[in-house]
């Protein structure tokens, strides 16, 4: 709704006064930009909880034996940490925040195809998050199965698992609806003249991601329902005592959860593909190769789930197949890294904060990727399976990949989203502390895992002490960096210098609208000409 003096294309989305006031103007808004911020603040809230739990785990591990919590509490802490970080932060992560905010603007649309369904997705997100939290606050103890809810323990554990399982189920709906919305938006609402191969790479990455969200998420939904039925009615699908197969649970769980890794990482790669050409002031190298590799990752990523199960007792034939496919999926990721580095080659590099985050993303992602090959090879996997090595690997990929890309993206699009510029010096200080802390926190875990320290244990042998002290110290440094980043961004959103329309001299469409954008983004829908393109420097 609009007043006579407040035309939608004249007032920015932050100041727009509609039918509702106060918080209702946000939680009832169907504007994609406001929904993006709703997601961002909800995720930030959950992220604070997840980080606090992670810090508690590292503090427990600073010395052998009991330090601050007993083993059962430790089991509960790593379970809730995992559920929050995976299902509420990194899976919705970039699509829900930057996808929602930027996708329509980048393709020249006024909103997503189904704005009301978009808001419904956020409601599902909040409902799912509340259900998971309720499993901690009520019932017979916090879930202790790990975020994977592995059978048969997930239906034998006496803890309050049902709300957590149902919460993850509801969160899945949020993901599916967002995916559906993005697919339709990209197919139907691109600006006139913006053909598929003129579309920027971030929307392309969201397109690949959306298909995974749409097709893989129902599998985890049904699987979690089966676990709930197993707990309540003993139906015998996964329970070996009733003729069920617990390895079937692992198959079904990872049929979703491995593609989910690509739900996390593809949009991160998309954001990096926007940042690097901008701060190199150069056309992206291998535009089509990046698109093909995005779709190849999305496709091949469906068929590699078994590498999480090499020691589960599945057949040798399946093991060989999954191992080969895992090595194949590394190829398109390597193509992207090659393209990003080639884009920087002979570019006019501007080392602003988003660029620093992007290059560190490449660095940590490659460490995560190469350590993934150790886990993808059958012979080495057996030695490091379920050790701290695996924890280091997936934190380099998931937190290193998604986290660094998220921080890169927020520093890149911040002036557009809030119309103000952050303090650039503090942004770089925050990045430096975070990066040093991150590497100090997770690198020792590779060594600890190689030496045989198991994951998910609250205690360890004395020979693992030094590595764990280093890791805990790293967690403090990283959190200090995180605090600097968050405080800098919050202060700047309110008091930062006014940002221009295009402070980075980017070429994509979001940098042609005012900062912050007006309610419906464009006064007139832009038209792409023959020679227009997203990276024509």
């Amino acid at each position, binding site marked *: 709704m609009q007043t006579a003096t407040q035309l939608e294309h004249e007032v920015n989305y932050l100041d727009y006064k509609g039918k509702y006031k106060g918080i209702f103007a946000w939680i009832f808004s169907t504007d994609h930009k406001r929904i993006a911020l709703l997601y961002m603040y909800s995720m930030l809230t959950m992220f604070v909880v997840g980080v606090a739990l992670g810090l508690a785990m590292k503090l427990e591990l600073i010395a052998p034996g009991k330090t601050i919590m007993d083993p059962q509490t430790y089991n509960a802490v790593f379970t809730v940490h995992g559920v929050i970080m995976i299902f509420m932060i990194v899976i919705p992560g970039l699509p829900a925040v930057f996808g929602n905010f930027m996708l329509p603007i980048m393709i020249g649309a006024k909103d997503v195809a189904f704005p009301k369904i978009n808001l419904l997705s956020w409601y599902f997100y909040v409902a799912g998050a509340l259900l998971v939290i309720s499993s901690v606050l009520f019932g017979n103890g916090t879930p202790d199965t790990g975020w994977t809810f592995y059978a048969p323990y997930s239906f034998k554990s006496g803890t309050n698992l049902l709300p957590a399982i149902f919460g993850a189920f509801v969160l899945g709906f949020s993901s599916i609806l967002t995916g559906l919305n993005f697919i339709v938006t990209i197919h139907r609402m691109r600006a006139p003249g913006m053909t598929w191969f003129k579309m920027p790479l971030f929307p392309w990455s969201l397109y690949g991601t959306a298909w995974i969200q749409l*097709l893989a998420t129902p599998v985890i939904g049904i699987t979690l329902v089966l676990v709930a039925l197993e707990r309540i009615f003993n139906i015998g699908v996964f329970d070996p005592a009733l003729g069920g197969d617990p*390895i079937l649970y692992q*198959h079904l769980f990872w*049929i979703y959860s491995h593609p989910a890794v690509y739900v996390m990482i593809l949009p991160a790669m998309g954001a990096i593909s926007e940042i690097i050409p901008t701060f190199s002031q150069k056309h992206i190298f291998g535009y089509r190769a990046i698109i093909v590799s995005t779709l190849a990752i999305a*496709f091949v990523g*469906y*068929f590699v789930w*078994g590498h999480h199960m090499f020691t589960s*007792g*599945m*057949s*040798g*034939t*399946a093991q060989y*197949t*999954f191992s080969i496919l895992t090595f194949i999926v590394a190829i398109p990721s390597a193509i992207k890294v090659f393209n990003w580095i080639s884009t920087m080659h002979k570019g006019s590099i501007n080392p602003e904060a988003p660029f620093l985050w992007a290059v560190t993303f490449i660095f940590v992602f490659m460490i995560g990727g190469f350590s993934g090959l150790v886990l993808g090879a059958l012979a080495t996997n057996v030695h490091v399976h379920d050790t701290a090595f695996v924890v280091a690997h997936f934190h380099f990929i998931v937190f290193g990949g998604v986290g660094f890309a998220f921080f890169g993206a927020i520093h890149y699009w911040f002036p557009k989203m809030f119309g103000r510029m952050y303090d650039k010096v503090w942004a770089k200080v925050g990045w430096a502390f975070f990066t040093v802390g991150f590497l100090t926190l997770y690198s020792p875990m590779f060594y600890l895992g190689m030496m045989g320290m198991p994951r998910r244990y609250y205690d360890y042998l004395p020979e693992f002490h030094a590595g764990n002290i280093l890791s805990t110290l790293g967690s403090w440094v990283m959190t200090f960096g995180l605090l600097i980043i968050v405080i800098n961004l919050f202060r700047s959103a309110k008091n930062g210098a006014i940002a221009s329309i295009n402070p980075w001299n980017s070429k994509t469409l979001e940098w042609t609208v005012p900062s912050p954008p007006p309610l419906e983004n464009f006064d007139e829908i832009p038209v792409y000409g023959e020679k227009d393109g997203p990276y024509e420097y």
Partner: protein
Amino acid sequence: MENEKHHIVPYKVYIYILVALIAMTFMSIGITKINLGEYSVLGAMIFATLKSILVLSWFMHLKFDQPFLRIMVGFVALLFFAVIFITFLDYYFR
């Protein structure tokens, strides 16, 4: 949009489909009474596939929709069968 043809399916076709779906549901239950060994899953999958095709084609109107949408659904079906096939590389060779 006004120029698009809207195909109207007669009610009796919907009833035939419904009857076929109910019949195949009973047949998929009945097949579990026959000991087909390792092929019992295959039997159940065949009935489930036939039922899905009927629902997609008539109830969801795919039969009368643009070829592009049929290709998309076909691609998704292929993906689904590939996932099933790879899963059974474990079960048949375990």
